[in-house]
């Protein structure tokens, strides 16, 4: 079964590494994906603040386009946490509130589209664990991430409030994958705490503070790097570390990678194909990682 792939706006720019590594990993795991043709913005967060019904219409267009592709049961792979939430929210509201449904249906019809509610919105974590399975992932591991201590960070919108594939308070799918890759995972209480989201761009003081809290706690618990599943989380946590250093005294640099990049690494794929060259804070030396034995290097 082919998954309809919805990258979302971030994955074409700041989150390009996510886009590249996800595609590579899917190829390696033989997960067929096909990018949704002419997809549009999901209608997420900021949009919702201006016009809610149009936000639903935006999501509905994507869902309608996706539904057209599948034969009654389209599986849509949505890696960006904000898009995942935005599309899911639209899906739920269309189901729960007939008034919204009626309005959106009419608008879709005006655009020559229709959506009957049969698209399943799935995050890659969900697909990798539920559909592909840890065995298949394990079988693909060529260079285990032995000795690498990973803090899995889900951020907020991935598990709240709509995800069903994992626990809202203590999600573990990413940990499962990291363990399969041979890495060690740390237990920490902030894996679903907000990174500051778009506030980093608007009210920098506040946004940075939130990201800083997460990074220091990961450091305190001995993490070598933070694994993320959301382009905005990755951007916030990684790209502002210099500023956090100055403002709050963040101690050193913490690599922040997409979980898909780490999967690719363990599968033995090239740094470039995984977009690792796009990172601001380089990952611990590959050689050291592959050699195992805990010879991890701090960035």
């Amino acid at each position, binding site marked *: 079964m082919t998954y309809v792939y919805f990258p979302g706006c971030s994955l074409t*720019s700041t989150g390009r590494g996510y886009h590249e590594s996800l595609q590579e990993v899917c190829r390696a795991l033989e997960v067929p994906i096909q990018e949704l043709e002419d997809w549009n913005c999901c209608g997420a967060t900021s949009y919702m*603040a201006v016009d809610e019904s149009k936000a639903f219409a935006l999501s509905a*267009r994507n869902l309608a386009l996706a539904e057209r592709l599948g034969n009654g049961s389209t599986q849509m792979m949505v890696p960006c946490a904000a898009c995942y939430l935005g599309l899911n929210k639209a899906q739920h509201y269309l189901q729960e509130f007939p008034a919204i449904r009626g309005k959106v249906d009419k608008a879709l019809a005006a655009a020559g589209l229709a959506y009957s509610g049969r698209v399943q919105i799935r995050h890659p974590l969900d697909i990798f664990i539920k559909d592909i399975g840890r065995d298949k992932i394990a079988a693909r591991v060529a260079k285990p991430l032995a000795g690498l201590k990973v803090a899995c960070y889900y951020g907020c919108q991935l598990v709240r409030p709509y995800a069903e594939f994992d626990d809202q308070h203590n999600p573990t799918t990413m940990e499962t994958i990291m363990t399969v890759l041979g890495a060690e995972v740390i237990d920490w209480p902030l894996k679903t705490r907000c990174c500051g*989201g778009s506030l980093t761009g608007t009210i920098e003081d506040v946004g940075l503070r939130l990201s800083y809290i997460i990074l220091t706690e990961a450091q305190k618990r001995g993490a070598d790097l933070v694994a993320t599943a959301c382009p905005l989380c990755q951007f916030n946590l990684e790209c502002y570390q210099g500023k956090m250093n100055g403002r709050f005294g963040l101690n050193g640099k913490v690599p922040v990678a997409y979980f898909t990049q780490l999967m690719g690494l363990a599968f033995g794929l090239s740094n470039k194909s995984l977009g690792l060259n796009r990172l601001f804070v380089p990952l611990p030396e590959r050689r050291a990682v592959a050699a195992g034995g805990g010879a991890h290097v701090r960035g």
Partner: protein
Amino acid sequence: MEKWQGWDKIQYEAGLDPHFGTKIASIPGGDKLLACIQCGTCSGVCPLSPYMDYTPRQIVAMIRAGFKAEVLSSYTTWLCASCYSCTVECPKEIKITDVMYAVKRMAIQEGVYPKRFPTPVLASEFFHSVEKTGRSTESWLLVRMYLKTNPFKMLKQAMLGFNLWRRGRMGVGVESIKRKDELHRLFTAMENETRAERRAGQEVRP
């Protein structure tokens, strides 16, 4: 944020909007708002409440009591990062995040949000760029936001922008979908629907 005083400490009934609460509660599933027991869970779980002028719980209380002017002009909603912690944890299942959105929308509609505060500006810039092209282009979005709020800040961000560009994480072109006409038909129909609803007096939603 140079508020030395929240508002006149005595609040006269004439200064309140008695319909404000029910209006906000008319969003889908919003009726639960009226069942708030003021337990403060929302504020307690909120990662941003330390930076807000009113805690989310206070906002809910103020909405119910009709403190419209204060709520619409407060910074609280614009600090909400939509992390949904409050929505998930609320023991009364109030969709607090959606309440925050409703307040934001009403504030934008009535033009009473804190001026030159970056978040509402970002929201409307985002809205307009998607409206035009169907997608958001992160680089241009930020540029426009800084221009409208604090142009000097943009200079400070120039280094970050350069670094992103160098790593291929920020383009200079504008992202757009192909079938913009389709999208515009969709939007126009949606606007017509909303207008019709308002005319029919059904649309009480902000």
